[in-house]
């Protein structure tokens, strides 16, 4: 834990990302509990939903080989949410689309999968092929789910709520750039959050936002792309074609009431490609597109 600026900051790695918890406290002792609680929640959610762990819920679903798997309440809530997003996005948001990454390598190079490569994985994509009824999920053999698209934002909101419940200090939870601020700091001062330049992350921020209470999330990663036929294709994949979404912005940042809502909007906007800005305008959501 370090004292950065005028807040205490706890830093750790979770969910394959650098994480920070900021507590608006003068004393280190007041900051210790909320930071420890937020970190424990991040680690709990990572352990429970990681697709890299065979003992996670997701690992158990993948190991079922086509048999139905009954899941607990929290997982059911997340799957319900993912299912609703699938409907709201007319199939663009799909937690079964992760297997497409087997065909694509977004390393800035020009390797594009062949039709045969895509034909091998596309049959394994499509939430409608899964049977999600009440608390039981049945995935056809070979299909996988990836809750990464919502899990990090969910973890931010939960960690922030738990940290806030354990302390009367304002807290800001930032997991890999998706964040939630619990409220104004002492003296009614907002938190200041920088939005990175997608071309040079870690460099000078493109803009600074002041947030009292709210969630902020960014979709896009300028370094994960592939060149094909003179075009630069981002890593946002359309599950219906197996190809990257055309014209997706390099970076979409959304401010909303919760980190989950902000992250969902940012993801859904990216999936609309060139239509991202129009979509967010129509939704009346505060956003910054680069």
């Amino acid at each position, binding site marked *: 834990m370090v004292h950065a600026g005028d807040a205490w900051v706890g830093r750790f790695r979770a969910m394959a990302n650098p994480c920070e918890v900021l507590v608006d406290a003068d004393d280190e002792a007041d900051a210790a509990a909320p930071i420890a609680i937020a970190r424990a929640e991040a680690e709990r959610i990572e352990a429970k939903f990681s697709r890299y762990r065979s003992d996670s819920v997701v690992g158990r679903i993948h190991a079922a080989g086509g048999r139905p798997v009954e899941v607990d309440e*929290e997982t059911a809530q997340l799957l319900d949410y993912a299912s609703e997003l699938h409907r709201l996005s007319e199939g663009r948001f799909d937690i079964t689309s992760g297997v497409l990454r087997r065909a694509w390598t977004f390393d800035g190079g020009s390797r594009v999968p062949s039709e045969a490569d895509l034909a091998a994985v596309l049959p394994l994509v499509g939430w409608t092929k899964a049977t999600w009824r009440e608390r039981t999920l049945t995935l056809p053999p070979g299909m996988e789910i990836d809750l990464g698209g919502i899990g990090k934002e969910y973890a931010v*909101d939960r960690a922030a709520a738990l940290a806030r419940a*354990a302390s009367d200090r304002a807290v800001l939870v930032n997991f890999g750039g998706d964040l939630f601020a619990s409220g104004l700091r002492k003296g009614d001062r907002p938190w200041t959050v920088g939005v990175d330049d997608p071309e040079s992350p870690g460099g000078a921020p493109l803009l600074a936002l002041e947030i009292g209470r709210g969630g902020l999330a960014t979709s896009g990663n300028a370094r994960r792309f592939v060149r094909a036929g003179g075009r630069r294709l981002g890593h946002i994949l359309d599950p219906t074609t197996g190809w990257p979404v055309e014209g997706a912005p390099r970076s979409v940042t959304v401010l909303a009431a919760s980190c989950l809502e902000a992250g969902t*909007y940012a993801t859904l906007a990216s999936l609309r490609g060139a239509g991202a800005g129009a979509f967010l305008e129509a939704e009346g959501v505060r956003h910054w597109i680069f």
Partner: protein
Amino acid sequence: MRLQLNEPAAPIKSRLRAAVCVLLATGLPGVARAEGSTQLDSSVLLYGERDRADVVEPTVRVTRTRANGQSISVGLVYDVITGASPTGALPSGQVQTTTSASGQVTTVPAGAIPTTTFQDKRYALDGEVRLPLTSLLASTFAAHYSSEKDYSSLGASTKLSYDLDQRRITVTAGAAFDRDDVFPVGGTPLGLTDGSGALDSDSQPKHIASGLLGVARVVSRRWLLSLTGTRAREDGYLTEPYKVVSTVDATSGETVGQLTENRPDERTRNSVLAGSVTAIGADVLHVSYRYYWDDWSLESHTADLMYRHDVSDHSWIQPHLRWYAQNPASFYTTGLAAGAPLPAFASSDYRLGPLRTMTVGMSFGFRVAASAGEWTIRPEYIRQSLASSRAHEEEEDGPPEPGDDGLTQSAVAASAPAVELPPLDILSLVVAYSRHF
């Protein structure tokens, strides 16, 4: 005109926000419990009516919840009631005496409200099993048995609840059946007699079948609304065997005697309860209103208000206000005219009268240590009164006549004394302790 095919998609904001709220609202702030847990709840109720009944009631309940949501709960209640209960007879200018079927004789000083003294012990045992059938459908089965000197009750109930619309709406339907037996000490008195005769059978059965239908809706992350309707059908011996009705001399207004009360042997009861739970910051406001009506023409309104405020991480307070008002049953009467033809039914039981109740209470909850169980202390002051009987009589002026349902509408003698029963002050205190294992 051309059909426009490429209309822009309707904004998804409201549906998305609702989905976000459901996901983030459930399970917060606690971390989902991975394994099963056992909860112990215990309490002692001390209840005292000034110059009337005192109740001491210890309870204990153990609930075991499994990780899959199944739970089983067993509760035991024991209570001791001692004191006096109004017989229904009017205060009198003369010394009055009450005799019970058991041969007990009570002498009442002039002007005092006749009461019957008693001491009773009751125990009750109940069990409940909750079985989630699917993640959206849950069923509950429960049974209870209670027994005291002159009353026993055996019942079973079942309830199904189903979650809809991303769990924003829960619909609950339930049914319950009870079989009660009343066996008054010394036999069951015949209704509207001097109490000397008794019915053939010592034990009088009573059946209750009831149904429930409820809807609860998560309006927002901070607001829950619920609406519950119930309907119950009772038949059998519904009379209170120890309650009496005074007979009053029509000219002098003096109480000249008393008769056992008599009630219809069927009753259909209905209620509608609307409730709201709102989170205001870290505080919680509960508001509810209940409307009750039955085919004895009894009708009541209950308004209830509770506000919970966390004082610290380990303590909270919850002030509580309740207001209750009821219109009397059609055959409720303060007294019958002596010598006049008897109505089919009559009762002077204050619980069927124009009862008003005001409750003011405060709960304090605290934990001695973060890991220890929670203590709750709840003192309440209750003031019970009967609305002016004069007003009641004016409403029901005129000669007694049979109503549509065959019940005699009012047997109140126009000349019955205007009774001013003093309000009853009640103090109650609950000390409870709960903890998880």
